[in-house]
């Protein structure tokens, strides 16, 4: 695969009206309606699921010992007022945040290099293919052996799953770099670092954020999962594990629901960030393509 120089500078020739800007921003009313729709749909979905869960559990479809949805929900609120559990949430989020930051630090520069230097792309293609197909769960025993069963292990293991979406999206963003934008930068003799900072990084940033969104949800699941499997001393997974050993299914389920809600919240936050930071992309696509 050749990256970076695949597209030629060929200015588009489609005629463009001079009043495109007026079409670009959607009317305010239409916009709020549009962005509220998924929220409403999501809420309806959640409500429907909650009702179904309540019916299923109270009817005993999942066994008579299985706690009902309302029990799980009330247990969740109890947990959320429990300082110990909150601390565990903190530990999980801490490991997760570290893994995310490290993923960015590794994946973005590597992605930029792969996307701009064909030799690097060629040299890294096979190793990356091998590494990314290794299931991180299978690596848990090795990582426990080497890194113990707490933060270090969690971070490295999570990292092992979260770098890829960011890396691949960065590389994808590099392919999407506009040759006209690059030619412009060169024609004004911007130094390399300036091209990187002012042109390349802003261009790929939306792609990176997409990668981060995918990685974030994934990462949270892996952090909590690894805490469970490795028997970490702290974290949501550790709390759930303790509860399950004590046979308190309600707590186990409540802890899982909290993890799910955290993931959803992170995802929602990143979606909003995307809209705020990269409004120009939406406008551009609305106006140009």
């Amino acid at each position, binding site marked *: 695969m050749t990256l970076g120089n695949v597209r030629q500078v060929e200015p588009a020739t489609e005629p463009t*009206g*001079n009043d*495109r800007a007026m079409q670009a921003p959607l009317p305010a009313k239409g916009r709020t309606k549009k962005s509220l729709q998924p929220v409403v749909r999501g809420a309806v979905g959640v409500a429907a699921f909650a009702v179904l869960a309540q019916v299923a559990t109270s009817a005993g479809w999942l066994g008579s010992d299985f706690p009902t949805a309302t029990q799980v929900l009330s247990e969740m609120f109890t947990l959320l007022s429990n300082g110990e559990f909150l601390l565990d949430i903190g530990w999980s989020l801490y490991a997760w945040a570290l893994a995310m930051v490290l993923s960015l630090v590794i994946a973005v520069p590597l992605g930029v290099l792969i996307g701009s230097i064909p030799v690097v792309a060629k040299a890294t293609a096979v190793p990356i293919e091998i590494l990314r197909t290794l299931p991180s769960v299978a690596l848990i025993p090795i990582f426990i052996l080497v890194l113990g069963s707490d933060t270090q292990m969690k971070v490295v293991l999570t990292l092992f799953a979260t770098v890829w979406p960011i890396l691949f999206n960065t590389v994808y963003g590099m392919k999407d770099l506009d040759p006209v934008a690059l030619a*412009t930068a*060169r024609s*004004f003799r*911007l130094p390399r670092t300036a091209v990187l900072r002012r042109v390349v990084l802003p261009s790929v940033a939306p792609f990176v954020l997409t990668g981060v969104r995918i990685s974030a949800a994934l990462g949270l699941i892996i952090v909590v999962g690894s805490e469970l499997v490795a028997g970490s001393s702290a974290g949501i997974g550790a709390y759930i594990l303790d509860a399950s050993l004590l046979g308190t299914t309600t707590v186990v389920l409540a802890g899982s629901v909290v993890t799910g809600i955290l993931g959803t919240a992170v995802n929602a936050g990143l979606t909003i960030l995307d809209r705020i930071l990269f409004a120009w*992309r939406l*406008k*551009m696509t609305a106006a140009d393509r």
Partner: protein
Amino acid sequence: MSTQPQQPILEVDRLHHEYSAGRPAIDSVSFTIGSGELVSIVGPSGCGKTTLMKSIAGLMRFTSGTVRLRGQDVNDVPADLAMVFQDYGRSLFPWMTVEANVELPLRYLQVSKRERKDRTAHALAEVGLSRDSDKYPWQLSGGMQQRAAIARALAYRPRLLLMDEPFASVDAQTRSDLEDLVAAVHRKHGTTIMFVTHDIDEAIYLGDRVVVLTGAPSRTLKELPIDLPADRDQIETKATSEFIALRSEVALLIRQAVAESGHRRTPQS
């Protein structure tokens, strides 16, 4: 007005380029541009104008021939040269305001912050975008975006300004306004401009001289001095008999050349 080229800024000599061996995009193009001149390069679509532009700007290596800028061979992108691309929408950076776009190249020149701000403000005023400096490119119409791109080039104060079919994607009225803007800038600052277009009227209306290229692969067909008064008017100038005569002359030349190059190319294609 035809300024005789005193000291050529740009000398292009037998420039030849093949993207793939044996299939020339440019056959042989030669011309010079004198200091302070506005030279129009006119040729049909696909004849190699953008290739010529990029070769002069040092954005690509050409197969053979020479390009000299103030006596120096062009290898890398020369300093004090600016380009305005046809594709303003992709040439302006959408994550920066209009002002930041104009200011950006100046950050990497030896220019104080104050002068940078000054130049930016002046350039924006010159193209009539002072009130839109805080907007983003995508909030502007196509014509205004191209004004912003022109402002960026002006603020850079190049010795040579290259414009590659800058107005090919805007509507007719905007196009006339932008042509007059370029003419005004040229008159006021004496900027040396190489203006590439496929539009014969535009080439004559703007040029001190017109260099006519053949169809693909292009050769220089003819150079015509344009002896029209310096103060030109979209309607009046284009109605003068001189203008009409020039237009027919160029159109005939191109028609013949296209027919000929068709003959030349038949054995190949």
